[in-house]
């Protein structure tokens, strides 16, 4: 019923063209599968919740014109003024902007662990009692900082804070899952007083992302940053207004780097986004090239065999049988390409795992790729096959 035998014999006699299409299909499958796999991973990374109220929050830097240590009283004055603004939900001090890829880290471990055991590199935010609220984090257990918890010091004095709030993720890493961390000590002698909902912190692209600790601390000799969370819809207006408010309080300083958290987030994920875009474009283009290539070649084959097709039709083959002939032929070529392509896709992924720290390919992507490429091949063959079916049986009777 199916013309496997004749098709195979025909293909064998004209094998170069078929081989080339097969090779092209294989490469296309390998590229599409791996590209799709990378794209979904990157997209998942970008879509991770940040934990902070990123749509309504911005930061700015405050650089005094005069050198010398900063006074916490001045900062408190600014904080009171900002928190009184009607459109400000909460404002606090931070040492670095969340999602900005720049900040501070420290190695932490539970105090009952020996040095070297259970150490976690953590992202440290120096902030104040309003910090938790400004980040938009929820307190899951324990208590928030109070004004009395603040440690005001120069980084050179070596005075350390006494309390901290850790994220759920960090608490699990430091003390184990399900262990209540409240009241426990982490080195160097800092007591955990609260557990906050998870956030990515300052380094979205690093292993440290999510291992976040807040400490109530103000360094008098460090750069000063304010974090300001505003009511929905007020971001642009407040990003203009707040610098003016601060300048009116004291104009002997430069207010700079006024940036929204969304803009930091965009910068942090820019290279992932670029990779996604470039891979997507490549996927579309390669499908087009391969699809059109198959259309072109099948059309040529159809044209070459018009006489044979006419003869077949004259001998009683239906239009459907002619269409089926070309689809089966196409299926055999594409099928062989897919088998080769699966091997190629796995091999390429193996190389990427070895050299570029990629993950191992999940079978689902291979299966999806196989279906997609098969459909592409079928669709591309449909039009030429239909053209073939239109060949009139009378062609066979015409003189050659």
């Amino acid at each position: 019923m199916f013309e496997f035998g004749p098709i195979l014999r025909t293909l064998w006699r004209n094998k170069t063209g078929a081989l080339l299409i097969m090779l092209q299909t294989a490469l296309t499958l390998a590229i599409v599968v791996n590209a799709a796999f990378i794209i979904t991973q990157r997209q998942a990374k970008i879509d991770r919740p940040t934990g902070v109220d990123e749509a309504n929050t911005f930061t700015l830097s405050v650089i005094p014109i005069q050198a010398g240590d900063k006074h916490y009283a001045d900062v408190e004055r600014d904080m009171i003024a900002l928190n009184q603004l009607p459109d400000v939900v909460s404002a606090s001090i931070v040492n670095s902007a969340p999602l900005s890829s720049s900040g501070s880290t420290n190695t932490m471990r539970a105090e009952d662990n020996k040095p070297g055991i259970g150490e976690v590199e953590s992202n440290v935010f120096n902030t104040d009692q309003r910090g938790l609220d400004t980040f938009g984090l929820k307190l899951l257990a324990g208590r928030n900082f109070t004004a009395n918890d603040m440690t005001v010091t120069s980084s050179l004095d070596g005075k350390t804070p006494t309390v901290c709030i850790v994220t759920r993720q960090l608490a699990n890493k430091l003390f184990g899952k399900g262990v209540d961390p409240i009241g426990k000590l982490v080195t160097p002698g800092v007591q955990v007083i609260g557990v906050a909902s998870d956030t990515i912190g300052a380094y979205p692209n690093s292993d440290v992302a999510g291992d976040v600790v807040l400490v109530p601390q103000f360094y008098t000799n460090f750069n000063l940053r304010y974090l300001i969370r505003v009511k929905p819809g007020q971001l642009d207006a407040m990003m203009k207004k707040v610098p003016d408010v601060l300048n009116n309080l004291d104009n002997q300083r430069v207010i700079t780097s006024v940036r929204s958290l969304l803009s930091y987030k965009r910068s942090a994920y820019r290279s992932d986004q670029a990779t996604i875009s470039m891979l997507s474009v490549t996927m579309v283009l390669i499908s087009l090239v391969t699809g059109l290539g198959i259309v072109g070649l099948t059309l040529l084959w159809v044209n070459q065999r018009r006489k044979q097709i006419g003869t077949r039709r004259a001998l009683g083959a239906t239009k459907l049988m002619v269409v089926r002939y070309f689809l089966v032929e196409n299926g055999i070529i594409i099928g062989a390409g897919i088998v080769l392509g699966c091997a190629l896709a796995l091999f390429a992924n193996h190389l990427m795992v070895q050299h570029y720290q990629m993950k191992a390919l999940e079978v689902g992507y291979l299966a999806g790729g196989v279906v997609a490429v098969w459909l592409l091949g079928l669709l591309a063959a449909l039009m030429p096959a239909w053209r073939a079916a239109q060949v009139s049986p009378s062609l066979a009777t015409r003189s050659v």
Partner: protein
Amino acid sequence: MFSYYLRLAWLSFKGSPVMSALMVLAIAVGVGVAMSTLTLQYVMSSNALADKNDQLYYVQLDIRPSDNSGPQHTRNGIPDQLAYPDAEALLQSDIPTRQVAMHQWGGTITSPNPDIRPALISMRVTTRDFFSLFDVPLLYGTVWDKSADTQGQYQVVLSKRTSQQMFGEENPVGKSVEINGQPYEVVGVAADFEPAPSVQDLTTGSFGGNADAYVPFGLHRPLSLMPWGNMSCMGGGSDNGNTEGYEGLLQSNCIWLQYWVQLDSPEQKARYQQFLANYVKDQHKQGRFERDQGAVLSTPAQWLYQNRVVGNDTQLLTWLAFAFLLVCIINTIALLLAKFLRMAPQAGVRRALGASRSAVFTQHLIESALVGVIGGLLGIGLALLGLVAIRQLVAPSMAAIVHMDPLMMCVTAGLALVASLLAGVYPAWRISTTTPAYYLKTQ
């Protein structure tokens, strides 16, 4: 003969416009994609200090605790910066022709002209050899005196841009600016130094280590200067003494300084390597270092490699783009082959009329080359378009340098031609070897 073949090619081109357009498009798209990603990689992997690659060396010392903790930014795992005591000690050596200890700093700058608003600038705290070692020309004035590298002197070399910002077009040498409220004498104005990637300092990103002003290295103690770049402090049992305050930081094993030396001959390099090895052994004996070796000198090219300036993604995309180009070439081979075979009867007639095999081969190769040339021209256009799109995607600091230079333009054209010839050789050969009799019979 050539023009005749070209005419034949053009006729055949017109004979099957859809097919020809498909082939041209495949080559164009393949070349376009391959070249835009290759240009991206080429830009990122360029070495801005290539002309002094055999003279300049970045210094790394292995100050890590023996348990391997500490930052791992570089491929060799050795810390990417030096601690202050090591920089001070290395500056004592007279082996290098030039040497630079430096780090990033920042602050406010105030012009004597009250109409000009104070601004935030990024600065480089450095020894005076910076300008000669990196070949940064001075537009006005000079660099500070050698003594300013060890003793605080409030002198500054402005970048051209900052000078224009603060003083307009006039020569500011001898005038004064305030930095963080402290008056500094402007001793010179340097040309803007913006190598891309910023090989000289890769610690805060590969395209961002450039400065608006330069101040002497001797200012640390008078100003209690804290870096604006990265600082990592090593744990472990290396706290020698209990010095508090800023002096304590200077004596600590916190790393925050970059160090470059210029060594002009292999003999000089060998001597310096010996000096570094001895220094590390000595520090180990004194208990400051927990390891007794691990002094590494890297050329600018090696230093770019150590810092992974070309990201995994860029390399991956380049591989992918070339796999894509391969698909396009295979596609074109298949189409050309099919097309040529269809025209085989004509070739058969030509052969029967006396055309040699090589003549038939040349004729068809020229037709493939025509596909390549048109595809290539279109491909260059597509690559340029691709780069416009890529500039929208990457960080602004990188977008500024993503351009196709004449070299890449030539590579693109060459690639298109090679691709089309590759695509044409086999079909042309196949058609030239068919026996004329076979096709004549079927006529």
